[in-house]
């Protein structure tokens, strides 16, 4: 097995993280996050005033947001190297990762559609904005499933020197727990669990970003280990 493609995909992760961070900062709706309590008129005027920035940031996210998938697939390949009884968790991880990617792409389109004709009726802009935020924030089941299946695979890895160290399993579970309250954005429209709240926005997204950063080093170590094991240059 070669490791060169894995190394390239690995380095796509920080590039993608940087691009997403850039898009995140350019989208005026994120810093601070738009409140679900805003009136339709307030939402419509936000899109009117910031249409250019919203388009720029969301096109950037559109172009590069899905580029995390190769990195996730490196994790799948590393999971398949683990001495687990079967590869069932690797396939579950793969399925969950593609589901999550589709949701990000959909949320991004809703925001872009809202910014396309901001002089549309205010209620329509508000609806597109609601759909964008709900799609972005609430359906966390796929990310949580990725973290849980990865954790289970790591814990069952019977190699003398595990592919990923055991603490990564615990860290994945903790991150999953921090991301899970995002689902409550479907329940609350104000407070810490609303889509602009402490848990559903700040903690959920920071936990995700930190997780990608940590996993970069974890995956890099695993690829190096694989290269040494198979006697190929990394």
């Amino acid at each position, binding site marked *: 097995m070669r490791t060169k493609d894995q190394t390239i995909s690995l380095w796509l992760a920080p590039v993608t993280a940087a691009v997403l961070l850039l898009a995140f900062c350019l989208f005026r709706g994120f810093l601070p996050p738009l409140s*679900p309590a805003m009136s339709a008129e307030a939402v419509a005027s936000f899109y009117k005033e910031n249409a250019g920035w919203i388009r720029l940031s969301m096109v950037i996210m559109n172009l590069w947001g899905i580029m995390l998938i190769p990195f996730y697939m490196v994790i799948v390949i590393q999971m*398949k*190297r683990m*001495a*687990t*009884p*079967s*590869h*069932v*968790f*690797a*396939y*579950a*991880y*793969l*399925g*969950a990762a*593609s*589901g999550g990617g*589709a*949701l990000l792409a*959909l949320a991004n389109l809703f925001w872009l559609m809202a910014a396309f004709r901001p002089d549309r*009726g205010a*209620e*329509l802009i*508000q*609806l597109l904005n*609601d*759909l964008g935020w*709900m*799609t972005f924030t*609430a*359906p*966390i*089941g*796929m990310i*949580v*499933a*990725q973290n*849980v*299946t990865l954790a*289970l*695979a790591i814990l*069952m890895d*019977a*190699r*003398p020197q595990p592919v990923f160290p055991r603490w990564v399993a615990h860290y994945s579970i903790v991150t999953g727990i921090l991301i*899970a309250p995002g*689902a*409550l*954005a*479907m*329940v609350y*429209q104000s407070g810490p669990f609303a889509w602009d709240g402490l848990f559903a926005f700040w903690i959920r997204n920071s936990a995700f970003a930190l997780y990608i950063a940590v996993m970069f080093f974890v995956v890099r170590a695993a690829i190096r280990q694989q290269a040494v094991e198979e006697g190929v240059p990394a």
Partner: protein
Amino acid sequence: MSATMMDVSARLASAMPTPAPKAHIQYRRNSKLDQWICFWSIPVFYVFFGLVFVCLTRTMPPPSANVSQAGAISFFQSVAGVTNTHIGFALLVFSLGFYAMNNALVVVQMKRMEGVSQAMAYAYIVVLSLGALPGCMFIAIVYSVAAMRPDRDPQLVSMLYDMGMLSYVGSLGCFVAQYVVFVIAVLLDKRRIFPKWIAYFSIWVIFTEILAGPIFAFKTGPFAWDGAISFWLGTVVWVFWQFSFTICLYKAIKRQPLDEVVPA
């Protein structure tokens, strides 16, 4: 029954190749713990699924397809109960992750088949990862958005009402592809990982998906999204199928020899 079991295990023994183990395979643990975890996620997922759709959000059986705008609003205001809709779909988006584990299990079992390439296993996981969005996630998003502001323009509430139900009852292709892929694999499989009858049963389920096609044209009668044929017949058949399929899956894992090496 036991005769078939013996027949199957005899066939298993004769069909089992003994591939040369790769370096790392020798420290695989002889256990099926990971598959059992994924297996038990199936009942957990369907308990959530039933709780959410039947009890909390009252979207199963579906509300009427023949409603006025005011009817759609009152569905979100009172029929479902705003709080229940919210909590229900929050639970659903959380539990949908289990669905990925259910599907991965079928992939592993399909990879054990003989006389079938792994294309079918990969097709299976791709169509279901794809189908989760229109078939299940979309109604959760759209109905939560509708329920969060029932005082929106009535036309918009009514549109969200239709969008949710049409996507939930009317996402057909991903599931047709799932059954077709499964049928091809099971019928070609020389090892009989799954019995042939479940493949024939799956062909039946494909017909029920086809019978749900007319929901896009009818608002009343048996072909509406809450109709006797498009919804009830299809759902009853599907529930029986899902039950039988889960039992077949259980037996397939149970019969899998502990030391069997599944192709990577």
